[in-house]
């Protein structure tokens, strides 16, 4: 078992005929993900890779194929509309990879997500992967992962791969890795991801990778302090980032003295979480956190 995705996941890719959409849809399929459909308006009736049916609308795709998860690869100006389409069709899990969606569009998406049965991961994220169930919905390189008991959640892409790689190289594998994305307004939060891992019997330890901006790491720390008995290791990027500047990710900004790395690290340590001093030590910090809990 793992969280959110696995053998029962039936994936539809929105924007499957685009350049990156088709590339990554194929890479997910090659990894083992059960890709059942694609959606591109006005391209209905085509077959992707000679076997996966393409539909004009998501509603048709869901009705015809029973898709229960979607991956959004639609350009930023239209991505919010695609997420709304997936919410309307009742897709349980929506993973939005697209970077650069206007904040106001995401604000409206959040309104639609309330009282819906859909869960959103992202946008501006690498996606989610479950190595044991061979299910990958995202752009991460599959081979760096291996089945195991560590749940990893992160706001970043390559920084997550770095953490995954360190965990893999220390002989520990991952139960599920979730990239929640670098945008200020997004779906699944750090706290929600930690909660999923905490309730998952197959996850025995948790790694949380955060960065400057917002207060999600602090909220996750408060939850961990109260509810989590499993070992948790964390890392926060951006200790040397100048205030007031957006560091690549739209959400990575220290504004009005809030969202600093120092404040987040303090909150994490205060909650008893092992915080890696540098990104080179994420793997070792996790190993030590597991050893201490035994």
């Amino acid at each position, binding site marked *: 078992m793992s969280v959110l995705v696995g053998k029962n996941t039936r994936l539809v890719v929105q924007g499957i005929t685009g350049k990156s959409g088709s590339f990554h849809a194929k890479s997910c399929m090659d990894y083992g993900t059960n890709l059942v459909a694609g959606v591109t308006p006005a391209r209905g009736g085509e077959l992707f890779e000679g076997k996966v049916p393409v539909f004009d609308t998501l509603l048709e795709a869901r009705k015809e194929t029973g898709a229960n998860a979607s991956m959004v690869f639609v350009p930023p100006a239209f991505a919010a509309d695609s997420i709304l389409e997936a919410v309307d069709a009742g897709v349980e899990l929506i993973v939005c990879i697209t970077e650069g969606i206007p904040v106001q569009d995401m604000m409206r998406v959040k309104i639609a997500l309330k009282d819906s049965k859909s869960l959103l991961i992202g946008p501006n994220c690498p996606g989610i992967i479950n190595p044991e169930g061979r299910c990958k919905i995202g752009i991460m390189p599959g081979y760096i992962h291996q089945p195991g008991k560590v749940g990893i959640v992160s706001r970043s892409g390559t920084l997550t791969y770095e953490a995954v790689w360190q965990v893999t190289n220390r002989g520990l594998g991952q139960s599920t890795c979730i990239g929640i994305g670098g945008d200020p307004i997004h779906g699944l939060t750090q706290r929600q991801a930690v909660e999923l891992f905490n309730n998952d019997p197959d996850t025995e330890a948790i790694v949380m990778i955060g960065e400057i901006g917002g207060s999600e790491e602090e909220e996750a720390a408060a939850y961990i302090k109260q509810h989590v008995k499993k070992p948790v290791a964390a890392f926060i990027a951006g200790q040397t980032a100048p205030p007031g500047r957006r*560091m690549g990710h739209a959400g990575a900004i220290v504004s009005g003295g809030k969202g600093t790395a120092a404040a987040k690290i303090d909150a994490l340590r205060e909650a008893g979480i092992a915080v890696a001093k*540098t990104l080179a030590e994420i793997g070792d910090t996790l190993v030590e956190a597991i050893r201490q809990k035994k």
Partner: protein
Amino acid sequence: MNIHEYQAKELLEKFSVATPPGKVAFTPDEAEQVARSMGNNLVVKAQIHAGGRGKGSFTNGVKGGVQLAKTASQVKSIAAQMLGNTLVTHQTGADGKVVKKVLIAESVNIDREIYFAIVMDRAMNAPVIIASRQGGMDIESVAAKSPEAIYKEVVNPALGLQPYQARKLSKLLGFAPADMKDASKLFHAVYKLFMANDCSLVEINPLVVTKDGKVFALDAKLNFDDNALFRHPEILAMRDLDEEDPREVAASNFGLNYIGLDGDIGCMVNGAGLAMATMDIIHFYGGEPANFLDVGGGANEQQVTEAFKILTSDKRIKAILVNIFGGIMKCDIIAQGIINAVRATSLPVPLVVRLEGTNVEKGRKLLQESNLPIIAANALADAAEKVVKAAKEQK
């Protein structure tokens, strides 16, 4: 994206938010002309993006980027002192900013100053109005000293700003019952501006009430959501490249994400989070990063070459660290890009390269066989230590 005060003023007027009469001028003669068409109590304001202009001083010795004037000829001589000269404020850094335009406005008889702002709040997923009777000063110091003097009103984005919320705010901000209607209208106008232009911040500080009961937005700071600029060409047209770091402009032209910092170790990384973490580890080992540079997840050879050009043209840089985690982007392709870039730019400083991920062995082999003076590092900590050491030896 930021805009100038005079541009913010135009936008506010467009949305029926009153500002004192005024106009921008690019030369002292133009400033004089503008002043002739206005009254006798004028203010000349240097137009740069940084705050703290009033307390700033010019490198030519002139004090104050905001000065009062009585006559058109006075306006002309003040404008002549400002235009073409460098203004240093607490926000510009020691280098300051060259003033290329001034705003000439009528100064108003202020009775009281209010703070009124709308920000997009990430935790609430909604616009939040922040207001205080203590306007005209830094809101963060008001928040620190008297947090009870700051009012926050969350706007439900599905409903928009409601009349009762505007009434509540006008009462809290001390408007007389007879003026509540006008104040409410003003708040609605600012909200409309905020939403219609995909702003991330509209900060009117101060919003002034004059002795004769008029309300003006005396100074305003507007920030826009960069992701939404594609649907606001008129806002994008207000971008002033003179106000931006030329290295950042060059980088953005090639789809690279660059931010200049104060250190002497250049770095080039794929991915924003990894780039930040790389800066941090350089600092941890006793060095200081000269920049943040994210070449993105799918960088091609040309982008790597351009990134190198930006780094190698920076005279302060004493050593360069390239840290790449090759995922979809394979290490051998990255290595080839680095080799070509080094050959194309010639390398003035030591270069440390750390590759990890897909095809890493092939990548390392390519670097080794290139016979270029590249310092290879396998582990991250090793790479950081090596680059810090190399930078120190250059001094």
